[in-house]
Structure formats: C-alpha cells, structure tokens
C-alpha cells in the first residue's frame, strides 16, 4: 500500500543515479566557470558576457520551475481547462518584460533592482526598500520550490518518512549552495541552460509520444481524457473546473490572473538575468528567446496534462503520493517505463535545484550589493573582493534558511506559495519599476510608499485570507481568523500599490528632473551602460 500502482515500477536507484549524473556534470561545469569568476561583475552578472540566446535559455530555465513543470501538467490532468489558464498568464506576462522593462533596466542598472530604483533617488532608503522586497519575494519563491522538493522525494524515491524527506531537502540545498558560492552567476547560468535544455527536450519527447498514440490529433487526446474520466469527463474541457464554484472563487481567479500577468516583470531573479548580457539589444534578444521557449513548453504541458488524464487517469493521479504533482512522472512511466520515469524524475530535481540556485544568487546579490556595499558601507567599498565575500556568505545563510524553511513547508501547497510570490512581486516591485522608468515626477517618497505599502497590503491580505486559515486547505487548520474573502490578494494590493506610489510622489516636494534627464537618455540609448568585461 505504500505507493499508488503507477509508481510501483519506479526504481529509486535509477532515479538517483540519473540525478547524480546531472549533478556531477553540472558541478564540473560550475568549477570550470569559477576559474574566471573573480570580480563583483563576474559574481553578480557573469561579467555581462552571456549572449542573448544563452541568456534566453537560462531565463526559461529560471522561470520554468517545478510549479510550471509538475504543477501545470497536474492541474490540467485533474482540473482540466482551468489548469491551462495558469500557463497563459505565465506566458503573456513576458510581454510586459519585453516591451516595458528588460532593455531600459539593462541600460540603467548594474546588478540589482536597487540600482535602477536608486538611480535618481536617495540611495539608502530606496536600496533598503528594494532589498526588503527582493528578499521577501525570493523567500516565498524559495519556500515553494523547497516544499516541492519534499513532495517529489516522496513520489520518486519512495521515501515516505518525514526525516528521510528532510535529509533529501538538505542535500538538494547543499548542492545548490555549492553551485552558487563557487560558480557565482556564471556557474548558475550554465546550470540553468543545461536544465532548460533537458526540460524542454524531455517535455517535447513525451508530447510527441502522447500525440503519436492519438494519431497526432489534439482533439483525440482531449477525447481520451474525457473518456477516461467517465461521467465527470466533459467538464475537463470546460472552464470553471477549479474556480467556477461561486462568485467569490471567480473573483479570486481574476485576482490570480492579474498577479500572474503583472508579477513576472517584478520577479527579482528574472530582472537580474537581464544584467548578464552586454547590451540592451541582447536583453531584448534574451526575452524573445525566452518567450518562444516558454510558450513552446506551455503548449507541451497542455498535451502532457490531457495526455496524463487520458493515459493515467485523473483518479489515479489524485490518489498517488504527491497528488496532482505526480501527473507528469506517472505519464512518463506509463509511456517509457522505469527509464523514462528516471529521466523525468532527474529533470524535475534538476529543475528545483536550478531555480533555487537562481533565487539564492539574486537574494545574496541584493543583500551584498544594496545593503552591505551601499547602505552599511555607504558605497565606499573599495575592495570589491570584500563585497563578493559578503555575497557568498549571504548565499550560505540564505541556503540554510531555504533548507530549514523547506523542511517546515514540506507538504504545503506549492502552487499557492508560487502565486504568493507573484502577488508580492506584482504589488511591491512592478509599480515602482514602471514609475521609475517612465514618470518624470516620481521620487523617493513615492518609491518607498509603493514598495512598503504594496508589500504590507499584500502580506496582510494573505495572512487574513482563507488560504492561511478557515479555507478549504489552509496553512493552519483548526483556527479561523480570516476576514479577507479571497486567497489571491492581487486585485486589491496591485492597484493600491500604484495609488500609494502616486500619492507618495505628489505629497513630497522632492524633484529630480536633472537626474531623470540622465536616466531617460541613458535608458533609451544605452549610453554609459555597464559594459561586458572580457576575459
């Protein structure tokens, strides 16, 4: 009775073997990359020397997290159409990054979001605010990934006791820390590139396999899922399977959709990737590559989801350890047996590892560059090696926090934690970034109001939401202190943050038109932008 029937053929030794191979290969690459990583520009931004296509692949590696890979396929398999809605929000969001953010950000900053925001404002308070929101978003995102690792272990390695799962979370965290500390941004980027390649090829192979079984006819795949699900089957193709229950859940869904589409361009680990290329034009090229790859992957996940529904069955998936998250691995086993399951399991682990590494380097860069170098040392750190040393130590601390947090968050709802990170990013970061790039009048007070205001409103609404207490599957069961009806705060917190940024600005007398002239000219033309360092 230990595992659902589909996973019985799983061979934990094989799964671990393939994963170990991935770790060994990537570690060798990270060590090689570390030989040329000495300066702060190397550690934070890989010397601004990756090409557009390389960075685009790495962005998709950073973005396609376990929530995308396992979560969306599973949601489509079990809830049908509503699962598909997630992937559309995640994809369309990239247009904001492409049209409004990527190039201008690359032209005006060096390593972090704090660089851009503090360009024409008072350095210390704005950098502190940027660091706080960066750390908050990264923390929620990290928790989601690490919590996912626990569930995955249960599913793929057959480790069911809590202590064993905790040990595996610690091992995953430790490997990630090694990547980040030794390889810096260059090493981490290579890990992302390898992982993205494996993930997209793996998903592509399974997609073709599923389509092949149904005569390359998408309609037949859908029909298969409907037939397999029996009486409830036809609902799989219709909207509302997950969010259609009541007026409240419908508004909740609209709120979630807003956070997804507005959150991406405010995710600090995504923003930081734009600095790893030499010019704004390469930043544009990276986003174009990322959009095509991410879009392609989500099209695959549509087939994966309905394919899993058709070939494995929603009932089997829901009953398997890991629940919905097991859809893609179970489908792999159904098609290619133990070996394909092993490969997909390893890819899933690699996914978590790479995303966690990307988040950790972002959070450590924000602390070392914004807080340590520019706030504590007031920008007088002559010794850049000292700053990088601080960044490495911070990465160690964040890694440790991620491990502990992951062990505690094991079993929490991954999709919810990720949605939370998106809501915080959309509320605290995006309004500030847009105002800062496009609004002449914007000033320090406006930036502080929108970051701190957006962040607090968002977090307060989450704490008093049904997702934390009193809902269907709450974080704390047995108590009920919720008063906000929605699980997703975005529909309130995002407009509030825009409004606070506006009010904070006009209520303050500070004007910085001369600096804005410089910022605007530089952001649009790339004059005096950070250049690539050559080795």
């Amino acid at each position, binding site marked *: 009775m230990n595992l659902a029937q589909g996973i019985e053929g799983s061979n934990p030794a094989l799964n671990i073997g393939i994963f170990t191979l991935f770790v060994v290969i990537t570690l060798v690459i990270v060590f090689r990359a570390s030989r040329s990583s000495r300066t702060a520009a190397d550690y934070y931004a890989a010397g601004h020397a990756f090409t557009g296509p390389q960075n685009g692949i790495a962005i998709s590696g950073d973005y396609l997290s376990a929530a995308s890979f396992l979560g969306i396929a599973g949601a489509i398999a079990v809830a049908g159409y509503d699962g598909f809605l997630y992937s559309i929000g995640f994809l*369309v969001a990239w247009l904001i990054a492409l049209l409004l953010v990527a190039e201008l950000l690359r032209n005006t900053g060096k390593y972090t979001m704090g660089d851009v925001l503090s360009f024409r404002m008072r350095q210390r308070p704005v950098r502190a605010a940027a660091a706080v929101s960066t750390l908050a978003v990264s923390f929620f995102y990290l928790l989601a990934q690490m919590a996912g690792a626990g569930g995955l272990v249960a599913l793929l390695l057959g480790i069911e006791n809590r202590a064993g799962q905790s040990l595996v979370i610690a091992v995953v965290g430790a490997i990630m820390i090694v990547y980040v500390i030794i390889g810096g941004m260059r090493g981490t980027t290579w890990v992302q590139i390898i992982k993205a390649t494996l993930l997209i090829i793996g998903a592509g192979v399974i997609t073709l396999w599923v389509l092949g079984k149904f005569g390359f006819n998408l309609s037949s795949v859908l029909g298969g899922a409907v037939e397999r699900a029996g009486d409830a089957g036809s609902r799989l*193709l219709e909207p509302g399977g997950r969010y259609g229950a009541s007026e409240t859940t419908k508004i909740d869904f609209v709120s979630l959709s807003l956070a997804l589409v507005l959150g991406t361009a405010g995710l600090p680990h995504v923003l930081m990737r734009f600095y790893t290329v030499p010019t704004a034009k390469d930043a544009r090229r990276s986003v174009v590559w990322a959009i095509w790859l991410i879009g392609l992957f989500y099209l695959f996940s549509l087939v994966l989801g309905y394919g899993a529904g058709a070939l494995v069955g929603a009932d089997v998936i829901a009953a398997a350890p890991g629940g919905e998250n097991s859809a893609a691995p179970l489908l792999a086993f159904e098609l290619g047996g133990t070996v394909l399951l092993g490969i997909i399991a390893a890819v899933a682990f690699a996914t978590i590892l790479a995303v966690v590494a990307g988040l950790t380097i972002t959070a450590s860069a924000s602390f070392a560059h914004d807080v340590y170098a520019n706030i504590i040392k007031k920008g007088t750190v002559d010794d850049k090696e000292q700053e990088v040393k601080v960044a490495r130590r911070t990465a160690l601390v964040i890694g440790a926090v991620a491990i502990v947090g992951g062990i505690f968050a094991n079993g929490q709802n991954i999709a919810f934690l990720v949605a939370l990170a998106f809501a915080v990013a959309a509320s605290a970061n995006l309004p500030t970034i847009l105002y800062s790039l496009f609004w002449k009048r914007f000033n320090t007070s406006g930036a502080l109001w929108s970051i701190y205001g957006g962040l607090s409103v968002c977090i307060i609404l989450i704490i008093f939401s049904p997702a934390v207490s009193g809902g269907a599957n709450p974080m704390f069961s047995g108590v009920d202190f919720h008063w906000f009806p929605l699980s997703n705060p975005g529909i309130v917190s995002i407009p509030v943050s825009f409004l606070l940024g506006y009010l904070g600005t006009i209520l303050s007398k500070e004007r910085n038109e001369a600096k804005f002239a410089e910022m605007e*000219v530089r952001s649009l*033309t790339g004059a005096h932008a950070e250049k690539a360092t050559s080795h």
Partner: protein
Amino acid sequence: MSSTDQEPTPTTAPDWATIQNSAEFRQLRKRLRGFVFPMTVAFLVWYLLYVLLSAYAHDFMSTKVVGNINIGLIFGLLQFVSTFLITSLYVRHANRHLDPVADKIRADIEGDDK
C-alpha cells in the same frame, strides 16, 4: 548633430537635459512610447477579455467547434499566437525604428571611440 558635447575626455559629463530636449531624442522616445504603450494596453485588454470570459461565460467558452476543441481552448491558443505575434512585431519595430536612432545618439554621447 544634436549633441555639442564631443570632447573625448571622460571627465566632462554629457549635458543630459539638452540631449533629452533634442529633436532626435524626442523622436526616439515618441517612437518607443508610441509603440509599447498602446501595445501593452491592447494585450492586457485582450488577456483580461479571455480571463473574464473564462470566469463568467462558461457556456460560450464550452461551445465545441471541431471535435473536442471548444471556443475556450481556441481562445487560449490565440493568446499564445498573439504573444508570439506582438513579440515579432516589437522586434521588427525596434530594429527598424528604434535601434538606428538610439545608436546614433549613443555614439554622439560616448564619442567616436567605438
């Protein structure tokens, strides 16, 4: 040349306000904003239309068109198509109308060292 600041010495800061007011830069800004702002509004409206229809027009979205493929799925796939399309349109616009102007202004500011 709109920029008069052609000294190769890196110590003299460019006169950003003058450059910002130059006809050339204003043209660049107009071309950028004239494309990205309307396009952003357009894709957000298009996306919200899809979200609202999915939330509130279940029957319409569930109408079958071909085999098991219904309007909702086609609408969703069209979101992919529009995203790819806007991406390509923007790249074409940037290559033709933004980069040449931006490169020229940048060269003026940074001097002809490259």
